[in-house]
């Protein structure tokens, strides 16, 4: 019994060591309950949870390489994967501002998979929703055996974070937002899985993500090979709408010979300005003449609060651990530990002067 207790303790220490040793510039952000939440930087293979007991995607092997000669793809033989200086973590600092292309290659178009990820056993896993109800990484080894054989079902009952039903004439199909599958239906056949659906612009869905889903699906159908496929939505802070998605793909049996990409696709819509904290939107100046078919939803702050520079007194809830302040109605306020919570009545400016930051979710 004592030996078992000691071995469990050692396993826990080892797990903590491995997690703390992962690279990447990590930013700890407010979770409302004082616990750190990493959202600004994706640390490869450390943020995934899996529903598949047969496959643990939290691998720690060597990163894949791509010699990437100009005229022919380099095959990365799983048996020949060696140590590499390739970055093992994605950072938004790699992503340029949107400038007209729906996606941009990152990390030299080499996915962040490691040798431990390589498998020819199909699986799919979807991360649990976070404390704001947001999706995280969806990961699969896609083979023909898990691809759909039926037409797609209804997904309209799912309301991903940041969702608004809003139309603009400048958007193909009018609707600004689509329920975007992280892993496309044509790959794993997931219908109304809330852990696989985010609020994405029509542009992200059709111009950013669908081309990669098509490419991967065709390859698998034609070869009966497998493709490691991972999509991670990137949220800034407590925003309800993702800035974009990191998409990674790698064909296993041929060592990336035919499928190998690592791209960031922008969750933008040309002609529309989007508030990523809430999902609210408005026509930007370049498309103002077309006018929205339906006015976007406007979320007003509560009557009890003030925004801007007013010195009006109001009730707030403070988190003395994270130095954030919330509206009393904010769901994040409900999660603050009693030892960190303080009810406050006073001005917004006074709180900011005292070093508190407004919660990005309730925007007090």
């Amino acid at each position, binding site marked *: 019994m004592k030996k078992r207790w000691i071995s469990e303790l050692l396993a826990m220490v080892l797990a903590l060591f491995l997690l703390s040793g992962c690279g990447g510039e990590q930013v700890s952000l407010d979770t409302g309950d004082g616990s750190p939440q990493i959202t600004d930087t994706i640390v490869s293979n450390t943020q995934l949870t899996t529903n598949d007991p047969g496959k643990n995607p939290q691998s720690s092997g060597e990163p894949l390489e791509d010699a*990437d*000669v*100009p*005229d*022919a*793809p380099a095959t990365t033989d799983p048996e020949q994967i060696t140590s590499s200086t390739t970055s093992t973590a994605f950072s938004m600092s790699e992503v340029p501002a949107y400038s007209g292309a729906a*996606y941009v*290659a990152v990390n030299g*178009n080499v996915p962040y998979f490691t040798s431990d990820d390589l498998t020819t056993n199909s699986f799919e896993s979807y991360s649990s929703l976070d404390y704001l109800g947001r999706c995280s990484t969806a990961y699969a080894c896609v083979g023909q055996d898990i691809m759909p054989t039926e037409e797609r079902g209804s997904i309209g009952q799912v309301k991903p974070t940041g969702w608004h039903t809003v139309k603009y004439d400048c958007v193909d199909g009018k609707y600004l937002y689509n329920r975007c599958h992280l892993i496309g239906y044509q790959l794993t056949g997931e219908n109304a899985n809330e852990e696989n659906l985010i609020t994405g612009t029509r542009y992200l869905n*059709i*111009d950013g993500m*669908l*081309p*990669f889903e*098509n*490419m991967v*699906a*065709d*390859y698998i*159908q*034609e*070869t009966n090979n497998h493709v490691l496929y991972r999509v991670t939505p990137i949220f800034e802070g407590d925003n309800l709408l993702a800035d974009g998605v990191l998409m990674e793909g790698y064909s296993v049996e041929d060592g990336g*010979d*035919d*499928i*190998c*990409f690592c*791209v960031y696709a922008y969750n933008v819509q040309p002609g529309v300005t989007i508030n990523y904290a809430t999902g609210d939107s408005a026509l930007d100046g370049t498309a103002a003449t077309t006018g929205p078919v339906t006015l976007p939803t406007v979320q007003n702050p509560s009557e009890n609060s003030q925004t801007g520079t007013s010195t009006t007194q109001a009730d707030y809830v403070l988190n003395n651990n994270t130095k954030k302040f919330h509206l009393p109605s904010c769901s994040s306020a409900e999660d603050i530990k009693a030892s960190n919570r303080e009810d406050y009545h006073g001005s917004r400016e006074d709180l900011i002067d005292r070093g508190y930051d407004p919660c990005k979710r309730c925007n007090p």
Partner: protein
Amino acid sequence: MILIVCLDDQNGMAFNHRRQSRDRVLIERVEELTAGRKLWMAPYSRKLFSNENVVVSVGYLAEAGPDDYCFAELDDVKPYENQVQKTIVFRWNRRYPCDLRFEFDLSNWRLVASEEFSGSSHEKITMEVYER
């Protein structure tokens, strides 16, 4: 040469030095079209084909004779446009990632034939034949 290319909805040919798509039925069609003639291609394309008229060379676009076929996937063919007497375009009728596009201005060419057929993984593939 007689050039053969496969294009998506944006005249894309490849992404990250890899083909956008493939289809067994299309390959069979190419093999039928080129039967009895030399079919030049880069080493990358070789594994798609099983027929014996295939000639593999890194410099295939420069080495092909006037009546030979060239199947191009990852190469910018624009510099060789003057050597091309006929262009056969297979359109996937889908959109794929793209960082290499087909840059011929086909409005300057004459469309002499067009045919649609079903592929093995593509609902509709369109074959277009252009001559000068």
